[in-house]
């Protein structure tokens, strides 16, 4: 039995090395593409060029996480960080968290306050682009508060947070690939007025 356990452990270690090597190669590939884009794009400060750099950089970073954690686990950074990592088996009990009523009440207070600020912006009729920016910012703060405290993700293990949040954020960022088109597509419509006259026509 113990020989079986040992062989499975050996196999899983080999698998780790292979998977981490693949991750590392792909991460370097994406970083290479991001760096290459900086060089080849010509005009760097365009929506498309920035998008490519950000997306490739993010994909590279995500792929880098696993190899770095693996190296950290096996003590390659021990001299740098100077900490000792425990490799002994740990007890597998679910994390339990019970916050105080006071904490939840204060979170509720924050959420209500931020909502009232948003409504106040609508009352004051702030210009629409500024309003959109502030609203999205405040909504992200509110979402973070709800996820962290009400869904108590803040008190779960880091591994769960790392599995759920970065993937979601990256997928949402990928949606933005459509947006440069939304402003252009007005001019492609049948019977549309050319872009130069658009502004004058919409004014009155």
């Amino acid at each position, binding site marked *: 039995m113990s020989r079986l356990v040992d062989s499975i452990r050996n196999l899983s270690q080999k698998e780790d090395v292979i998977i981490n090597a693949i991750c590392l190669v792909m991460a370097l590939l994406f970083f290479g593409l991001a760096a290459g884009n900086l060089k080849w794009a010509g005009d760097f400060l365009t929506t498309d060029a920035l998008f490519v750099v950000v997306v490739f950089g993010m994909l590279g970073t995500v792929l880098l996480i696993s190899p770095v954690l693996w190296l950290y686990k096996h003590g390659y950074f021990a001299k740098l960080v100077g900490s000792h990592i425990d490799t002994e088996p740990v007890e597998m009990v679910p994390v339990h968290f019970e916050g105080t009523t006071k904490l939840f009440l204060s979170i509720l207070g924050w959420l209500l306050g931020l909502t009232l600020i948003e409504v106040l912006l609508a009352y004051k009729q702030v210009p629409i682009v500024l309003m959109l920016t502030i609203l999205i910012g405040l909504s992200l703060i509110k979402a973070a508060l709800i996820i962290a405290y009400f869904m108590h993700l803040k008190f779960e293990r880091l*591994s*769960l947070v790392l599995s759920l949040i970065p993937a979601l954020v990256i997928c949402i960022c990928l949606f933005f690939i459509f947006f440069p088109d939304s402003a252009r597509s007005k001019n492609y419509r049948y019977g549309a007025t050319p872009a130069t006259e658009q502004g004058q026509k919409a004014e009155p």
Partner: protein
Amino acid sequence: MSTEAHAEHLVGTDWEGGALPYRVGHKKLGMWLFIVSDALTFTALLMGYSYVRASSEQWPEPFHFYPSIIFSTVMTLCLLASSFTMVMAVKASARKDRQGTRRWILATMLGGLLFLGLHITEWKHLIDEGLTPKTLPAEWLREWPNATYLFGSTFFAITGLHMFHVLTGVIYLGVIALRVRRMSHEDVEIGGLYWHFVDLVWMFVFPMIYLLSVFRGK
């Protein structure tokens, strides 16, 4: 239970794929994965809404501060309050206080039903005015002559899907409240996760659909 113990014996540490690498039960992990995928559904809808709004020549901004915005703010407060009572229900279930759990969950359901009632009232007003997924009210067309009916399509699609989630959540919580004796602490917590997610989605729908369409006087 026995399989977990066996797996624990077979693979020792987390890095080798421990039995519970996330330290949460499989049901809770499943709910989290569902929430992530559902979040992407709503993101896609809101992105689609933003896209058609940005690419339209004109977009109606029909919600007067009073009564429409005040009305939807009250709806938001209902959802926030129900989210808080849900937290209290989870807390009560951690103390094994079944009666308290049931009472807090019923309060949560009340908040959800209030939200649904107000939302349906609002839909009814808009439909009576003449807003449908394919048409705009004639009065709005006088105000915004180049507007398309996409306002109605996106409005009913996004708020309708959210309303459906709230309805599902109320039924889900009802089942938990009915069978609270057989539910473990984790089951109540998972119901809470779903309810908070519904609240979370509204935190984006409310500003993007309502507040950004507030009536701006000429």
